[in-house]
């Protein structure tokens, strides 16, 4: 009702206030704004219904179910609200060890990907000629589309006891375990880092390099004082993916990790093997909180505008 009154006022006020040449445009936009709210509601309604109701609603159900419990004998879920599961998750040393291991793996994978992506993006964006650059860009993008499972499987084959790495190094393969997990995850998420970092490099105009050189800076100083601060938000954006994807992965870990367990493996185990959905839900709050904290931290760098 209030909105209706405001637009009515606009309709009557606009022609008298705005000078003559703008009269028609004012009337047109007033006409649009009268219908705008309905149009906006029609446009936003369905997507918001889906994302808020289906998605945020699901997360709400997940968080609620973390407070329920599973009957030990029947396996049925008891719908009483208790903090037991959360207390167990946040106090037991086993879960703390797994959480620490997972976050360490996520950080190491992110760091490896930054180290691999940075020179590639630098070369593609600022050194390679236009034709080579186009070819290289396609070459970097294509593996992103190769199936995730196939890539994890490829590393399983590479690191197999009778596989190529073992054959090349005379048996000095890391085998399946934590090292293999880190390598495979870094491999899987590398394109997710290269693409935003490349886009970040592209946003740095060449004229800035010339200005920096004119002011007497060498290449090293230009990289440090001009390039790095400008590319940092893009690196942060890439790191959201490498971090979040690592926190949520249990499949690649299962394929190359041997006995290694990361958070997602433990969650999966509780849900499927132990049939304890409430405890799995309580465990899922750990990566959820970790990534929300990480997103808040990265928001200050402007990373979210780079996604």
């Amino acid at each position: 009702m209030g909105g209706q009154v405001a637009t009515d006022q606009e309709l009557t006020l606009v022609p008298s206030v705005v000078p003559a040449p703008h009269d028609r445009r004012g009337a047109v936009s007033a006409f649009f704004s009268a219908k705008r709210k309905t149009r906006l509601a029609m446009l936003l309604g369905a997507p918001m219904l889906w994302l808020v109701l289906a998605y945020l609603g699901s997360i709400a159900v997940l968080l609620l179910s973390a407070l329920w419990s599973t009957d030990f004998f029947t396996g049925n879920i008891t719908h009483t609200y208790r903090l037991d599961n959360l207390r167990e998750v946040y106090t037991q040393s086993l879960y703390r060890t797994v959480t620490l291991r997972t976050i360490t793996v996520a950080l190491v994978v992110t760091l490896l990907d930054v180290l691999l992506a940075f020179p590639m993006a630098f070369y593609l964006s600022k050194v390679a000629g236009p034709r080579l650059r186009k070819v290289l860009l396609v070459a970097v993008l294509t593996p992103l589309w190769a199936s995730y499972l196939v890539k994890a499987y490829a590393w399983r084959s590479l690191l197999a006891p009778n596989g190529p790495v073992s054959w090349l190094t005379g048996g000095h393969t890391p085998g399946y375990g934590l090292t293999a997990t880190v390598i495979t995850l870094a491999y899987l998420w590398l394109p997710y880092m290269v693409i935003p970092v490349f886009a970040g490099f592209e946003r740095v105009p060449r004229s800035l390099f010339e200005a920096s050189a004119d002011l007497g800076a060498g290449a090293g100083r230009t990289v440090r004082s001009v390039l790095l601060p400008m590319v940092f938000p893009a690196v942060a954006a890439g790191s959201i993916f490498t971090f979040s994807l690592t926190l949520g992965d249990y499949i690649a870990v299962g394929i190359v990790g041997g006995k290694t367990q990361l958070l997602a493996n433990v969650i999966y185990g509780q849900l499927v093997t132990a049939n304890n959905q409430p405890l799995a839900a309580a465990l899922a709050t750990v990566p959820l909180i970790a990534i929300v904290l990480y997103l808040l931290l990265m928001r200050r760098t402007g990373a979210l505008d780079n996604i």
Partner: protein
Amino acid sequence: MYLSSRVRRVLAALTFLGLAFLYVPLILIVLNAFNRSRTFSFPPAGFTLRWWSAAAHSEGALHALGTSIRAGLGATAVALVLGTMAAFAVQRFDFFGRSTISFLVVLPIALPGIVTGLALNAAFTHVLDPLGIGFGLTTVIIGHATFCIVIVYNNVQARLRRMSGSLEEASADLGATGWQTFRLVTFPALRGALLAGALLAFGLSFDEIVVTTFTSGPAVQTLPLWIFGNLFRPNQAPVVNVVAAVLIALAVLPVWLAQRLGDDAASSRF
């Protein structure tokens, strides 16, 4: 920036090392599909095409492929409609909470897959199941569409940002109705972005496994679920190798199509 030739050479070397890191495992998989040995062994025992005909007759793989395509088409259709609507709202309107929309749209892929999967699983079990909608293709499509919306949204939004509203205003000034303007002005300008968005969304859905695991139920098997289910079965290994090689070869397709669309589409996967 002046870079000494040594720095340039180091950067080039690191780039090609990075590319080698990306490609060696993929090449290995393709080679392995022609390996005569049933179990994985290196160097390959010899050349054969036997596994390719075995794969072509693998009912499990073909059925799973069909399921994946149906799930991908369903999720893409939902994502196209919802993503485009949200992009229009954010780009063409100014309203309270506008910046929150972008955050909300990106959330399903920003959160770890296991969280999204478990949340949808909990909601489906406690809400949809009592309503009579059991786990199946529908729940897989709902799950996939949720994280595919952002892809379409990003593509359409980027296009709308570059395309000012003045064309639409001109069309309206010339007397076109809202529908005519959309059909004759807005939609043709958006076609490329919509195609790219659809392609990327389909690709993402086709490859997804974590959310799929938690939303599919026992009766539905997408291709990634089939591969994962057969990965550790020695007698299925040759067929898995062939499917893997085919999927690697198929990866060229979206990149090539995106190049043809003449957009930066392939790089805007997220």
